[in-house]
């Protein structure tokens, strides 16, 4: 194994944490969606690392599925954001306060 599993997992974990920060520090709807994308890709990296550790292909297949599903999710998310933008005129997260969290 060229790269130790722990190192790649740390990379994936750091990337995941960055994604969480990007999602939670909400200023803009598109940024929240970007944070989710980063988290999904971090999980993908973790899967590839695990697949390399155990020398099996299920992890790699999983990553292919993750990428396809992330694409579908982004399309759904952006469609919703566009609809919200047309209704309210802004993608700022603060304007969406009709519902009490």
């Amino acid at each position: 194994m060229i790269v130790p599993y722990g190192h790649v997992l740390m990379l994936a974990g750091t990337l995941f944490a960055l994604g969480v920060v990007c999602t939670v520090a909400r200023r803009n709807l598109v940024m929240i969606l970007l944070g989710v994308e980063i988290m999904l890709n971090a999980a993908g990296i973790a899967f590839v690392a695990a697949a390399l550790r155990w020398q099996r292909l299920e992890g790699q297949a999983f990553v292919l599925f993750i990428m396809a599903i992330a694409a579908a999710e982004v399309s759904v998310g952006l469609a919703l954001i566009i609809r919200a933008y047309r209704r309210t005129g802004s993608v700022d997260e603060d304007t969406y306060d009709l519902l009490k969290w």
Partner: protein
Amino acid sequence: MPELYYLGAAGILLLLSMVLQPNARRDFFIALFVAAFGVPVAVASVKLSGTLFAEAYRVDLFSQVFKVILAGGFFLVVSLCTELEGVEERHHLEFYLLLTTSTLAMMLLVSSVELLTIFVALELSSYSLYLLVPLRRGYDTAVEAGIKYLLVGTSASAVMLFGFACLYGVIRTTRFPEIIQVLPAGIGQPLATIGLFLALCGFFFKLALFPFHFWAPGVYQGAANQVAAYIATTSKVAAIAILTRVVSLCGGNGEYMAKVLVALSIASMTLGNLAAIRQRDMKRLLAYSTIAHAGYVLIGILSLSQGGYAGAIFYSLAYLIMKFTCFLVLVKVAYDGSDLQIAQLAGLHRRSPLLAMALMVGLFGLAGIPPTVGFTGKLLVFTAAMERGHFALVLIAMINVVISLYYYLLVVRAAYLLEPDEDLPRILLSVPVTLLLWVLVLVMVAAGIFPTYLLQAADGAARALVGG
């Protein structure tokens, strides 16, 4: 098999939605026929068993029982859509299409025994719901609820996926039968525990369990009434099924897991019940009650025994019927698709005695008053937990039942004792709806007194889960 049927139905609905001119009555009858035909298809395939796709997909009694419940829930929710005032007419067929795909995905979910299959099915059902929530006429809250639901939901999915990755890194397989053999030994490693917990977070989100419950009130309030009914009933049943399957992976000795689930269950019940007291909007109240009931179901699941799983399955069916009855009353009273305030229920016993009685029986069932089926469900779940020694948990749960009785009685009081400011007209119910209401009330009471048949089904399902 029911999945193939719903896949075909979704395809037909898709074609119809592109070709036909919108016509609310005809669309409703198409959807009703599709849903009604799905229930016998699901019931006919209860005895099937086998595995597909290199054991990624298992059909056993556990999954088939849940598919029957899901098909029934889908049919009930479609029967709510007689006058789909909350959704624009040209969107009706797409509305039914999204409901069908969501049901299809949930059926795939309860049959999944591999992490990838779970993920794909979960995402499919979630995306259908993300699209259904903003599909509401005239309400800005709907779009906002949809956005919030989507963002929280996808974050939860991403967290779950990372959990799957950690699990896969420790246990070198994604298939449940092999995970069962490897996980109890490997649970000592921190990565495995983290992975399992993160993975469960995705299911906690779908079940609206603390700490991923905060989307529920806003989404229920913002979505159209029928969509809220679907999310509250059918979606929760699927979440309970998959949570049961995943938790049963631990074998019988996941002590640490049980402790974590105990804490979450207590938090969920208490928070749901306390927050529901102050609600004025009926759908938000039902949302918080959903959060509390997620806590009750978790008590059954965390007892990690066959009796506990059977109790959880029985509770999920009972919960479906009771919650659906409440939403049926809500849809009929707020016939123009608006958000129902509790004060608007005033004088319901004069406007429609049948609706008021159904509401009362449904709410008493949710509270757990004998002889309704809700009491039987709670009895099963609590005894299963007591057998494993969780005395404090059951005590707290009973206190929560008393608290929940307060806000359920508030609603019943509004329906029976309050008088409206101006005279409101009588609510006329069509014959099918009257029939449905009577059937629901009778089932709720009869299944509470004679639960044998349903109990056998739940027991068989749990046995298939534990033995398989």
